[in-house]
């Protein structure tokens, strides 16, 4: 996309094909290029800058399947000015897209190893393309565990898909919520309480973690406690972003630009910064 779009600040116009409600405030959008032109290729964990006409732009992870590059899928939570406009767009509406940006999850390098995915809340969105990849190439990977936490059952993304995944024998899905009514069949408690039960060989495992910073901190501690080394853990960071290009400065995190050096980082490379406050 960058190749045929020499000005990296100029969005390309996409059309909203479908819009699906995930939770009270979160929607999944399917976008296509008008006229069904060339494909949009990306790597799991990358994000786009989505532009709503006149409203502004927000970094949003790509949440669709990397193999289905004719549609671009994003899951957006309505929290403010731009995300509200995006969530309100109807099929046929147009959005601007710049991207894909950022460093992806290392799915290819993980071949032959056990996979542990720990997601909190909206953090499942940037991990879903990786999950699709693992499922599509299931034989290339060892044991596969997904630990997903949300505040309540109503806050879980991709409910139907989770159910389908739960039915697979080669993929263990642990969904857990902070609070739930009597009809909830899953676990109750934060994701870290599930990690002790996850099945993986610490000597041969890669863990991918995405969620609120505090959740990631405790998850990393727990994974280290289970015998993973910092180099076996990947985290996805969030910062204020204006350009996605490594030019505007806003996403700086110590020596890193989260938009181009991240958002996915191998934990050992950022460990010292992860623990510092107000960096």
């Amino acid at each position, binding site marked *: 996309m960058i190749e045929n779009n020499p000005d990296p600040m100029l969005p390309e116009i996409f059309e909203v094909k479908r819009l699906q409600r995930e939770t009270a405030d979160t929607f999944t959008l399917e976008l296509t290029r008008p006229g069904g032109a060339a494909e949009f290729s990306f790597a799991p964990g990358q994000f786009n800058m989505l532009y709503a006409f006149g409203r502004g732009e927000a970094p949003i992870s790509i949440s669709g399947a990397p193999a289905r590059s004719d549609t671009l899928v994003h899951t957006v939570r309505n929290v403010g000015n731009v995300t509200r406009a995006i969530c309100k767009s109807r099929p046929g509406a147009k959005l601007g897209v710049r991207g894909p940006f950022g460093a992806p999850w290392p799915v290819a390098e993980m071949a032959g190893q056990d996979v542990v995915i720990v997601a909190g809340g909206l953090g499942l969105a940037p991990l879903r393309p990786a999950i699709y990849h693992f499922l599509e190439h299931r034989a290339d990977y060892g044991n596969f565990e997904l630990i997903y936490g949300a505040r309540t059952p109503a806050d879980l993304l991709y409910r139907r898909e989770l159910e389908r995944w739960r039915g697979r024998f080669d993929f263990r899905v642990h969904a857990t919520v902070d609070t739930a009514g009597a009809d909830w069949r899953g676990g109750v408690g934060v994701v870290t309480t599930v990690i002790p039960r996850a099945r993986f060989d610490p000597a041969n495992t890669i863990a991918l973690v995405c969620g609120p910073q505090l959740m990631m901190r405790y998850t990393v501690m727990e994974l280290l406690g289970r015998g993973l080394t910092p180099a076996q853990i990947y985290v996805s960071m969030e910062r204020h972003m204006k350009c996605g290009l490594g*030019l505007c400065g806003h996403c700086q995190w110590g020596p890193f630009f989260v938009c181009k050096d991240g958002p996915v980082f191998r934990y050992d490379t950022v460990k010292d910064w992860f623990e510092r406050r107000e960096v």
Partner: protein
Amino acid sequence: MATPVPVGANLVIEATDFPQLLAAVDRLGYQMVGPTLRDGHLIYGDLTGVADLPAGWTDEQEAGAFRLKRRDDQALFGYGVGQQSWKQFLFPPHHLLWRAARRGDDFQMIPPAEAVPRYAFIGVRSCDLHAMAVQDRVFLQGRHVDPVYQVRREQAFILAVNCGGQGCGTCFCVSMGTGPRATFGFDLALTEVLPEGKHYFLVEVGTDRGAGVLQAVPQRAAGAAEIAAAASVVAATAANLGRQLDTQGVKELLYRSYEHPRWDEVAARCLNCGNCTWVCPTCFCHTIEDVTDLTGMVAERWRRQDVCFTVDYSYLHGGSIRPSPRSRYRQWLTHKLATWFDQFGCSGCVGCGRCITWCPVGIDITEEIRAIRETEASLKETEHGDL
């Protein structure tokens, strides 16, 4: 005069012939910008010729203070750098990136069709040549190139001036290895020499383009004595700088010092006004503003220079990543002298001294580094990080 002068040649142009040099640049169709006085301020503005230069003026700079003074000669470049830098031309502080027009549910992008100014920068100091090289790394040598910067930079003609011992109260270019003599990145570099009764410029040719300009200007090959006289002007400047900064291990020093109490101490004085970053010739931060006209049918995207001293700058989750003034000052200083090395392979500070001069409370980056360095040993036992 018809044979082109080779790159690297040293020539002499008499001050009386200097107007012809600017006229020759002007004839090539450049928009000439350079030092000039406006409302009593030393700025970089449009020049029509030599008459617009601040002849016979100099400056005194100290932490938090800038004062223009008369010289007792008619030197054309007898002052240092003012508040502005060339970055305002290469990286315009407020710039329209594009427009978009709406039609029903649809909209269309309208890329800008502006004429890009072709600048000639007159009187660029060595520290600012280094600052441009630093911004080249940011805007041209990363994964994404900034097209706005790129065209302006590639087209610019650069007439550098070696510093002549004036207005260097807050500079520390020698410490940073960035001056006071221009060594690269210019078409022509001048040293203004004013020994008793004489007034001439030693000109070093940096490019064929620079040599071409000289074709139309009376000049002669420089003699050994003239070259030596110019060298001693620059040497005197180097010996007279008002500030020094010990760069030895400064990145590691700052990486070790995230919890140093000096940050609280400086935060108590710092107004968080961001002046230091507005005047900094390497600061590149900007924000994006998306707006619509009153009808809502035309949207515009503007790029505006931004600074890391605002709370909004790092806004996330209804709050700021750096809510405390201490953390914001730390971001600025640590970026300039530490994280910049990891990001761009060079220092983000070129020692021009602008942040010291234009800080309303006179905070001095060299003094802050000295204080952190000197007190580090006594703080060894505290909870410093170890990067």
